[in-house]
């Protein structure tokens, strides 16, 4: 009898997830935020945490955040108007001085460690407080991307540092006449973790734990939750078990295999949002040949456009999205997500294995050729399985594929050393539709920030012309026009093969609504009660 009661009690505990307090949201991340110091660390988990506390001038979706509006007064000068009446967690008002202070901190290297925008702020020559709520950024050359880059500039109160009275004079070393900035430890202890965001930091722990409390004076209206608890559980099974046991209200990244079970559970559900991450194959199109790619006649098969088209046509993207992701992936037709602002309208990429074989024959590879195909085993959702499916499809049109799945740490090193002729990669960046192609396919141009990771050795004049024009175009519509031109050339030439766009999935209590973000970040601001 006693045992029956225990079992009933356990069943009840599982069936009715208990809530610690009605207004606390308990979230489990899949990997740990590195710090609450908003300057040196990139990465989605760190950004997810920091955006609860700190805000930037521009939001991830390109809308104004702490800025009210901005305008290019000349091609090299951007004027940003700040919102009125915003206060920091310590009660101080947000002014232009705080923006300049934050930019100085971004350029200041603590222990020589580079910050998120250290290399992106090169063109900025001066930052001027026009009045209390207007900031002007002056540049040495047209730099329209700065609007996008401002998403990474978290705004701190100037009162947090050892700053002399009066205006701050910006300089590129970040000295700015400032005696000292708060250290990483100051942020992590909470002393310096003062922003304008909807939540205040109560506690941060390096294991990936953070406790937050509501900022009742938030300019955007009172936040939904009184308290937010963030925990990190790397193992997907353990994370799901925590949700099932009622330890969490929301977890990141349940596996595709767990989705049917979540659907069948009345107490739980999941929300999937198409994200900005596109997954593709990258091909080294060097006419001199590519590492790990060999043909019987010693030629360079990947340099032939017909071969690249054949590879693209060999892959059944619909089957991958449907079978390996249970529909929670969007088939790609270009290198940026097709639903992203600025991405051009393009037709679907064809799946036609017969035509693929014919193209290979036409190109002189009727007997196929051999590739070493590399894929990271631990980086992308279902990554190893997708790599095997791609291997199946390429094998079926006659290409001999040696699939090598390796841990990210090994894979990334080989990629950096240019040892990979064909590899699978994912690119998700908050900065516009052209970001990936401008890095991966453009000829290298350090001044314009183009081609820094052109592992394809791709070179096309029409593409380069469009990218160069885009890099200096301050008019959004015209810039998108150039993105469209470049994207069309790239999709025609296929220096890589687009596969699909990842969806970000959150599993959560059925009585919550998750208005998930496309940049894969998990935020309490996107979660509300029904």
């Amino acid at each position, binding site marked *: 009898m006693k045992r029956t009661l225990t079992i009933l009690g356990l069943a009840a505990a599982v069936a009715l997830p208990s809530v610690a307090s009605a207004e606390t949201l308990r979230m489990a991340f899949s990997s740990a935020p590195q710090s609450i110091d908003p300057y040196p660390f990139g990465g989605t988990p760190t950004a997810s945490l920091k955006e609860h506390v700190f805000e930037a001038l521009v939001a991830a979706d390109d809308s104004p955040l702490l800025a009210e509006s901005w305008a290019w007064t000349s091609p090299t000068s951007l004027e940003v108007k700040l919102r009125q009446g915003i206060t920091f967690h310590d009660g101080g008002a947000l002014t232009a001085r705080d923006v300049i202070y934050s930019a100085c901190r971004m350029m200041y290297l603590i222990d020589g460690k580079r910050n998120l925008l250290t290399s992106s702020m090169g063109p900025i020559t001066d930052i001027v407080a026009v009045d209390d709520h207007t900031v002007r950024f002056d540049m040495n050359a047209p730099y329209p991307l700065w609007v996008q880059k401002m998403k990474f500039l978290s705004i701190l109160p100037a009162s947090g540092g050892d700053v002399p009275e009066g205006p701050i004079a910006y300089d590129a070393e970040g000295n700015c006449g400032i005696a000292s900035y708060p250290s990483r430890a100051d942020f992590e202890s909470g002393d310096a973790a003062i922003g304008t965001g909807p939540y205040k930091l109560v506690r941060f722990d390096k294991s990936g734990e953070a406790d937050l409390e509501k900022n009742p004076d938030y300019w955007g209206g009172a936040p939904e939750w009184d308290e937010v608890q963030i925990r990190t559980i790397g193992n997907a*099974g353990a994370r799901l078990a925590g949700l099932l046991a009622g330890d969490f209200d929301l977890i990141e990244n349940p*596996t595709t*295999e*767990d989705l*049917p*079970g979540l659907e069948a559970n009345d107490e739980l559900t999941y929300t999937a949002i198409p994200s900005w991450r596109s997954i593709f194959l990258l091909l080294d199109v060097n006419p001199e040949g590519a590492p790990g790619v060999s043909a019987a006649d010693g030629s360079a098969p990947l340099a032939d456009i017909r071969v690249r088209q054949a590879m693209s046509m060999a892959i*059944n993207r619909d*089957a*991958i999205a449907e*079978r*390996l992701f249970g529909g929670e992936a969007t088939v790609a037709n270009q290198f940026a997500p097709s639903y992203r602002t600025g991405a051009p309208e393009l037709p679907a990429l064809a799946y036609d294995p017969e035509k693929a074989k014919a193209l290979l024959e036409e190109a002189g590879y009727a007997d196929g050729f051999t590739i070493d195909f590399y894929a990271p*085993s631990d980086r992308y959702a279902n990554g*190893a*399985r997708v790599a*095997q*499916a791609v*291997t*199946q499809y*390429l*094998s*079926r049109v006659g290409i001999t*594929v040696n*699939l*090598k*799945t*390796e841990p990210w740490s*090994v894979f990334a090193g080989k990629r950096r050393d240019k040892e990979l002729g064909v590899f699978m990669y994912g690119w998700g960046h908050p900065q516009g539709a052209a970001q990936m192609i401008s890095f991966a396919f453009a000829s290298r141009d350090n001044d314009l920030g183009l081609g820094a990771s052109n592992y394809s050795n791709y070179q096309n004049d029409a593409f380069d012309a469009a990218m160069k024009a885009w890099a200096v175009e301050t008019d959004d519509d015209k810039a998108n026009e150039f993105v469209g031109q470049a994207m069309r050339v790239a999709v025609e030439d296929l220096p890589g093969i687009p596969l699909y766009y990842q969806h970000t999935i959150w599993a959560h209590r059925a009585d919550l609504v998750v208005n998930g973000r496309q940049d894969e970040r998990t935020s309490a601001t996107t979660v509300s009660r029904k």
Partner: protein
Amino acid sequence: MPTDVTTVEVDPVAAADKAEPTFAEKFWKVFRGHPAALAGLIGITVFVLLAIFAPLIAPQDPYDQTQLDILDGLLPPGSQLWDGTPSLLGTDALGRDILSAVLYGLRISLFVALVAVIVGSAIGVFMGLLAAMKGGWVETVIMRTVDLKMSFPGILLALMVLAIFGTGIDKVIIALIIGAWASEARLVRAVALSELKKEYVDAARLAGLSDWRIMGRFLFPNSISPVLVVLPMSISGAIGAEATLSFLGVGVPITEPSLGLLIANGNDYILSGKWWISIFPGLVLVAMVLCINVVADRLRDHANPYLRGKD
């Protein structure tokens, strides 16, 4: 029941009359009256035959990517593949027929374990004999290396080796060899040391034979039997170790799964009701290791003079 064994051995007349028993007779004597061991032996034979003839039996070549289709993924047992091939045990996420994958996986698992144990034991035997024969600093170096190796958990050592050399079937074999030789070396040295004290060795020395010759002609055949007795146990251990490494994702390539990797593939689906991906390779692995262990137990009991004749 097995009292007749004793009778045969203590009857001096019969023993004298009989010629030296043939290998088959000796073999039969070990297993007669031990149905479990006999069943194990039959099981091993079946598994080995299945592994050898896998390409003829399996409905699909699971390593030939052109025969797989992800549209066949996750079919339950008893379904049909795209080309009409029946899939008796279902398919995994990539459309691999589980029956075929198990047969081929068995091949890899057995091959890796056999090669690793045979090569590892050969190295171990040689090292053990050398240590016993030479003594001095040679023995010290070898035996301290053995101690050092034995102080590492085996799987950890194999993981380290694979982290350094990378993955692949050849690397797994190397990792298992590195794990296998030390216990054999220690065993053989102990036996060889006691053999060295016997008169036939003195005689050989007096006859002027070199150390190497004594080692090869006399010490080796007289010290090898304990190794032969533990060999099956080493093989089942190696099968388990390979499965563990592959399960952890550092073993065989993912396009050529062994039993351990098949179990790992299915592990992701076990909570979503796709039980067949893990269960069948798991059952085969358990059955094979069980068969080998039963036979190994019998061999060990038979080799032990205190137990011989009692059972």
